[in-house]
């Protein structure tokens, strides 16, 4: 249909009067609910949008993200694969020092010091950390991700996820379960005992089982789990069951003696899949890194103090703002006053079109987003406004199997003022407390604004 062949159907952006005048002529219109861009982004937006590389760069970035084929390839010790020297820990989020670290991150670091034998007691651990004897580095810098505090020490067992399409590899630790756990900053005796068991039994058994079972197709598993009511961040029950079903025979073959205990542990933790899923998301987003000119977000991560964003066209630079306190539901007698600001690398799920972006797939947990299924659907629908594409494999049955919104675009965030919807667990603010709840958190605007301004500086000017 060429423009002049008949009365046009018109998209209207702007003055309502002009749309009304079309409606009075019985012309079909699609009104854009336009609003001004985020304050201070107007000029940067114009520069970035005018960069002639942008459309192709974003198309390439999001195509790499959505075409990644993550498979669970192995379970291995961090010391073997992450090149962690002595007295080095990885942590969630953008870089941070002990001084600025929040309660849960400090708690997890103390626990890790004890676990790795770098300190004999809590006191010594704190002193050595405060003295700067320990090197802290973001997981993201080593191709890894960690939920909540995300502390990784050399002895820990890691999921190794490979991208069968682009050849990348990513790592994530094994999930300890809920309640008082290291990733929420708890380091009491029961926490360390569990970690010791994971070190001694769970890790070796899973490692042998994965080797026996062969690579596990995580892309297919995530796609199925979405259709079974998971959004793969705050709900992983279906995915965990699927993984358990896949691995159980191999676990038995690998270690008849420990199989029951291992399977009971995995089966008793609805979030066991989360860490494998995060590594799958990490390997996919890493495939989309480094496309010059692209405004697509390739990482969102929090360290409990700062919320950081990385962008495909801006290399490994972090753009940060203060991490917000999640709005959510609390366990037991805990309340908002007990909550730590947002923490964890698990926002890699949202970065890949899962988690909050796939809320509409998970009606069972709609109470996190306002209580009604309609709220969950609205959350997902809103995310299509700030994303570049719809995931070809990850689909939402309730939306007519529409692909999940994927590929957060800085320019669309700035233009719409809509921030990514992030599902999250809530850690207690005092070191050693553990998890206090779960809910939603709003990322800080300034992280996205700062990234956009930086991208504008590196934009090609098409006219000169």
């Amino acid at each position, binding site marked *: *249909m060429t423009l002049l*062949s*008949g*009365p046009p159907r018109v998209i209207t952006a702007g003055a309502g009067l002009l749309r009304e005048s079309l*409606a*009075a*002529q*019985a*012309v*079909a219109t699609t009104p854009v609910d336009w609003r001004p861009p985020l304050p201070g982004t107007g000029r940067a937006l114009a520069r970035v949008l005018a960069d002639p590389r942008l459309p192709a760069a974003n198309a390439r970035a999001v195509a790499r993200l959505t075409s990644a084929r993550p498979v669970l390839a192995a379970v291995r010790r961090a010391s073997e694969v992450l090149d962690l020297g002595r007295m080095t820990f990885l942590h969630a989020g953008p870089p941070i020092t002990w001084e600025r670290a929040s309660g849960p991150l400090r708690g997890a670091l103390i626990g890790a010091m004890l676990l790795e034998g770098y300190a004999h007691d809590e006191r010594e651990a704190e002193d050595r950390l405060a003295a700067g004897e320990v090197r802290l580095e973001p997981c993201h810098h080593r191709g890894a991700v960690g939920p909540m505090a995300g502390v990784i020490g050399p002895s820990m067992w890691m999921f190794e996820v490979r991208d069968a399409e682009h050849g990348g590899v990513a790592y994530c630790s094994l999930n300890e379960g809920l309640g008082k756990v290291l990733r929420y900053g708890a380091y009491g005796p029961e926490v360390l005992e569990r970690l010791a068991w994971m070190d001694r039994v769970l890790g070796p058994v899973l490692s042998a089982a994965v080797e026996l079972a062969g690579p596990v197709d995580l892309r297919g598993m995530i796609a199925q789990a979405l259709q079974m009511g998971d959004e793969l961040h705050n709900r992983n029950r279906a995915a965990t069951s699927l993984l358990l079903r896949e691995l159980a025979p191999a676990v038995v073959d690998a270690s008849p003696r420990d199989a029951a205990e291992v399977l009971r542990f995995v089966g008793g933790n609805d979030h066991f899949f989360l860490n494998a899923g995060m590594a799958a998301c990490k390997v996919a987003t890493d495939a989309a890194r480094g496309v010059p000119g692209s405004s697509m977000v390739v990482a969102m991560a929090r360290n409990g103090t700062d919320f950081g964003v990385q962008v495909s066209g801006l290399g490994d630079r972090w753009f940060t703002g203060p991490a917000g306190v999640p709005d959510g539901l609390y366990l037991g007698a805990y309340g908002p006053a007990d909550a730590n600001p947002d923490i964890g690398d698990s926002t890699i799920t949202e970065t890949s079109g899962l988690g909050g972006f796939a809320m509409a797939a998970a009606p069972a947990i709609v109470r996190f987003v306002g209580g009604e299924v309609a709220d969950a659907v609205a959350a997902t629908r809103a995310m299509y406004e700030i994303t570049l594409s719809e995931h070809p494999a990850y689909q939402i049955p309730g939306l007519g199997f529409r692909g999940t919104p994927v590929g957060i675009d800085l320019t669309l965030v700035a233009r719409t003022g809509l921030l990514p919807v992030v599902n999250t667990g809530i850690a207690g603010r005092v070191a050693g407390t553990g998890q206090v709840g779960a809910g939603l958190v709003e990322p800080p605007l300034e992280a996205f604004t700062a990234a956009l301004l930086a991208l504008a500086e590196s934009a090609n000017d098409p006219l000169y």
Partner: protein
Amino acid sequence: MTVGTHARRPRTHVTGAASAAVRPVLEAPRRPARVLAAFPAGVYLQVRTDLEPSVIAVITGEATRLPNSVLLAGDLPHVAVGDEAAVGDGVILLGRLSLHARRWWAPAPPLGRVDPARLREAAPRLGAGTPGLAGDEAVELLAAGCASGHLLGVLTAAERLMGLGPGLTPSGDDVLAGLLVTLRGLGAAAGAERAVRLAGWLAATVAFDARTRTTPISATLLHCAARGESCPEVVEVLRGLAGLRPLEPAVHRLRRLGHTSGSDLAQGIAIGVAAVLSLGAAG
């Protein structure tokens, strides 16, 4: 002028778009009208006038833009068959509505120049479909008459076809309408003067008889077709035949109209195309 019992109730002013074919009736001094038929997506008004279209379709966005229609920007009023209305002085008074046209569309947009060779290549792609009068003798007579330029045969067939078939727009009328519009539009575009002259004769016959031989709605549509006016679905097929647009999707959309209306119109178009080609080739 007062209009039935509705006249003293306050009117709601609404606007819409109208086929330019309706313009003479709409701009003439106001005449009484009555509701001939009422459907969810359209209300047919019979206007007491000698002008054509004497039946005006007031439609919503879901309905086909017939060449005698006025497209409402809002919802149709609740009216029943037999209700009084009025048309003229630039306004349609229907139920509580007072309707003004805020835009006009062309029901017979020109097709430009068409190369007969292109038309010959496109013609077979119209397909046969399942018209209501498949294999009917009068249709065969019409086709044969058109292809050979045998005027008496064409007019005889036309008289037999008018009003033939069930429904508001009988199949015979749709075949004739498709034929008329094609002879007028593609005949002119391909420079086939004999086809255009044939359209003139056929139009005169149809215009003379339509009001007595078929339903009022169908008669009005035949009058429109006699002037080359049709709905966008037919126009798109003609454009497809002229090479301005992909043909197959346009044919597909046309065939979906009504029960057999779309296929009947397509049958008329096919007869018309054959006539344009054979009469044009004959010089």
